[in-house]
C-alpha cells in the first residue's frame, strides 16, 4: 500500500515539475506548481513527517503560491511568443550532464550512516509535532531565533522595495 502511494505521489510530482517548467502560460505554471507542492506533502506523510506535510500545505500552498498568483494577476503578463531563454540549448546540455553525474554518484552510494536518537516507534508514541517541537526549542533554539530575524528583514526589504514612490521621493528623482 505504501509502495502504491509512493509511486503515485512521486510520479505525479515529477510530472507536475516538468509541466511547471514546460507550460507556456504563467498561471498554468502556477497551477502545476500547486500540484507538485501538494504531492510532495503527500510524500512527507508517507515518511511519518505529518507536521512538515501540514506546514508545507499551509505555508507553501496557502501563502507562497498565493503570493505568486497575486503578482501574476497584478502584472497581467502577456504570454510571449518565445518563452524560452535566447540561448537555452547552451544551458540544457550542462544541466542534463549534471543530472547524469548526480545519478552516477547516487548509484554507488551506500546511504548508510549512524542512527540518530529518534527511532520511528518513539516518534509515533507522542506524534511528529511533539518530537519536532521538543527538538526545535532545545537544540535548535538559536537557529529558530535567527530565522525570526531573517523573516523580519525580508518583510522590511519587501515593503521598502514594493512601496509606491511618494511625492518627496519623486522630487528627488
Amino acid at each position, binding site marked *: 500500500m*505504501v*509502495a502504491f502511494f509512493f509511486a503515485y505521489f*512521486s510520479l505525479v*510530482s*515529477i510530472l507536475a*515539475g516538468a509541466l511547471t*517548467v514546460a507550460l507556456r502560460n*504563467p498561471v498554468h*505554471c*502556477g497551477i502545476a*506548481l500547486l500540484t*507538485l507542492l501538494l504531492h510532495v506533502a503527500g*510524500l*512527507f506523510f508517507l*515518511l*511519518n*513527517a505529518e507536521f*512538515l506535510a501540514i*506546514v508545507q500545505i499551509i*505555508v*507553501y500552498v496557502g501563502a*507562497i503560491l498565493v*503570493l*505568486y498568483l497575486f*503578482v501574476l494577476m*497584478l*502584472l497581467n503578463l502577456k504570454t*510571449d511568443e*518565445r518563452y*524560452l*531563454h*535566447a540561448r*537555452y540549448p547552451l*544551458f*540544457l546540455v550542462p544541466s*542534463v550532464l*549534471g*543530472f547524469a553525474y*548526480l*545519478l552516477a554518484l*547516487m548509484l554507488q552510494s551506500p*546511504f548508510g550512516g549512524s*542512527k*540518530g*536518537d*529518534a*527511532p*520511528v516507534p518513539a*516518534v509515533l508514541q507522542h506524534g*511528529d509535532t511533539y518530537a*519536532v517541537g521538543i*527538538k*526545535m526549542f532545545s537544540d535548535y533554539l538559536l537557529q529558530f531565533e535567527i*530565522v525570526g530575524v*531573517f523573516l523580519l528583514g*525580508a518583510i522590511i*526589504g*519587501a515593503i521598502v*522595495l*514594493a512601496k509606491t514612490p511618494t511625492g518627496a521621493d519623486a522630487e528627488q528623482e
Partner: protein
Amino acid sequence: MVPLSAYVAVSAVLFTTGVIGVLIRRNFIIVLMAVEIMLNAANLNLVAFSHYLDSMAGQIVALFVIAIAGGEAAVGLAIIIVVFRGKISTNVDEMNLLKW
C-alpha cells in the same frame, strides 16, 4: 517498504527539473517557481534521510528551508514589481538595469 534510494531518485529528478527551469525559462516569475521546485527537492531529501536514519534534525532543517523560501519569494516578487514599474520587461534576458 520503499527503499531510501527511491526517495533520493525522485528528489534528484525534481532538482534537475528545477535547474533546467532556472536556466532555460525567460519569465522571471517562472524562474522563481523553478527555484521553489529545487527547494522542495532538497526538503524531500532531508525528510527522507531524517526518516531512514532515525533523526529529527532533517525535519527541523526542512522547516527552516520552508521559512527561508517564504522570505525569498517575498523579496523576489518585490523586485519583480519594482522592475515592472520601471516599464522594463520581466524577461531575464532583457533585464540589464545594473549592467554597463
